């Protein structure tokens, strides 16, 4: 296993507000790392920085040994970093199917298993609704569409920002199976989650971020046992 996605001392800002302070971590090839933390801790900001949606003022991001700091978002996407954003960003007036096909553009020239049929197999709802405008889907349906859309591009690294938000318990279960399946085919995953049970079920390692600082890193078994940490940063 190689260091696949590396954040090195990244410092990110919104305008003048300093959000991330020297955030560093590494995701190994094929593993699932879960980034945890309270609301406003900086998880989403970290995700956005990794794909250069926010360019860090300081620090570097490496993907597969290559420095991608400051690269254009779409180029990073074409390298295979697929972000599933927390706020979904469905193309409302476009149909579900059109939304899905838009996802393929990041997968150009890369092989992978995902295609329309497989996606529909995992999310039958989407098949039923394929010719409806994406904007008319319910909150949870949109969440599925967002994930499916990114999968269409056969990402090498999947960045999942709170994928279970707004999903019903059954759907959360389905999603869990999906993530496990993705791991099986070797997808590297960076996850952010508030649903701890879900996180524990799929992650290999855990990092905790608080007020923009990485406070803790451990593998999942150590973390499970470390109640003090859970209490301190996650209040559970």
């Amino acid at each position, binding site marked *: 296993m190689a260091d696949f996605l590396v954040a090195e001392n990244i410092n990110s800002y919104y305008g003048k507000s300093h959000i991330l302070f020297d955030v560093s971590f590494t995701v190994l090839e094929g593993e699932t790392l879960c980034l945890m933390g309270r609301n406003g801790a900086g998880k989403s900001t970290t995700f956005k920085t990794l*794909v250069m*949606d926010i360019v860090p003022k300081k620090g570097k991001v490496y993907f597969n040994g290559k420095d991608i700091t400051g690269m*254009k*978002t*779409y180029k990073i*996407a*074409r390298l295979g970093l697929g*972000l599933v*954003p927390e706020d979904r*960003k469905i*193309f*409302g*007036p*476009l149909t579900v199917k*059109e939304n899905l*096909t*838009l*996802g393929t*553009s*990041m*997968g*150009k020239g890369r092989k992978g298993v995902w295609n329309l049929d497989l996606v529909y197999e995992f999310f039958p709802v989407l098949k039923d609704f394929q010719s409806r*405008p994406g*904007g*008319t889907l319910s909150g949870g349906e949109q969440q599925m569409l967002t994930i499916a*859309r*990114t999968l269409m*591009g056969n990402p090498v690294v999947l960045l999942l920002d709170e994928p279970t938000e707004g999903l019903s318990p059954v759907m959360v279960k389905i999603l869990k199976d999906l993530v496990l399946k993705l791991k099986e085919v070797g997808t590297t995953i960076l996850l952010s989650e508030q649903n701890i049970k879900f996180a524990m079920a799929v992650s290999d390692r855990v990092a905790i971020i608080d007020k923009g600082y990485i406070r803790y890193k451990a593998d999942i078994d150590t973390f499970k046992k470390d109640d003090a940490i859970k209490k301190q940063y996650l209040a559970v």
Partner: protein
Amino acid sequence: MDFNTLIAQFISGLSVAMLLFLVASGLTLIFGVLNVLNFAHGSFYLLGTYFTYQLMQMFDNFWVGLLVGVIGAGIVGMVIEVLFLRRIYGRDQEGAFQLLMTYAFILIIDDVVKFIWGPEYKTIPKPDALMGSLNIGTTVVPTYNVFIIVVGLLVVLFAWYFLTKTDKGKMVRASSLDRNMLGLLGTNVPMIMTLTFGVATAMGGLAGILAAPLRTVTPGAGVEVIIDSMIVVVIGGFGNFWGALLGALIIGEVLSFGILWMPELATVLTFIVMIIVLIVKPEGLLSKKMVGRK
């Protein structure tokens, strides 16, 4: 009113409509795709014409001029998009800033044209092949007008095919909705936007060039077409390509028959149509009410 007059007047309306549509289509494309109200669209109409004029001074060939004019208008459009418009995307009150920025370009381009080519009226002759007239029944229709109608229809077909049937077309539509997300999915959004703007301004140029043999080529001519084409867009439904076509047809025909029956009202007829449409369907004839949810 006899049948022949009706036909003649109908064909006149059609020909008026097609030129209106050619201008409005670029406007509506920019609007529908980039969410930009390109108030300067008429300036590209003007620029295309002057480029063609310049080329015809050198080569005396309408078709070469046309080609160069269209491409020229597109290139200027792309340069403006890259250097200026791009910087205001996503700003608060973006609409107002777009308006001001494109307004600034009306002012600038008009003066630049005057500076380079002078204030006098220029002439672009019709190509020889399209000189004469055709007889449709007992009605005389200039060949050139028929040519414009045909070109208009071709543009409609092409745009329809591009926007709804091709992947690029889908990207173009998506980029009007969420540029950021599209980028995250691996699409080179700035390039798409630049190209779209270029295509649309080239269409503006095309409209100007096709109109030139029938109209007066002069600085200021661009501003005059913009309000009419905006009304077409309003009537048809903002950003809707078919809407622009329908709007243009309605305006063309209403004007055409209005002139027969109520010549006193000619100058306000378009506005009357617009107000009626608005009362009945405020979002325009072919625009679906947005079903987006947050």
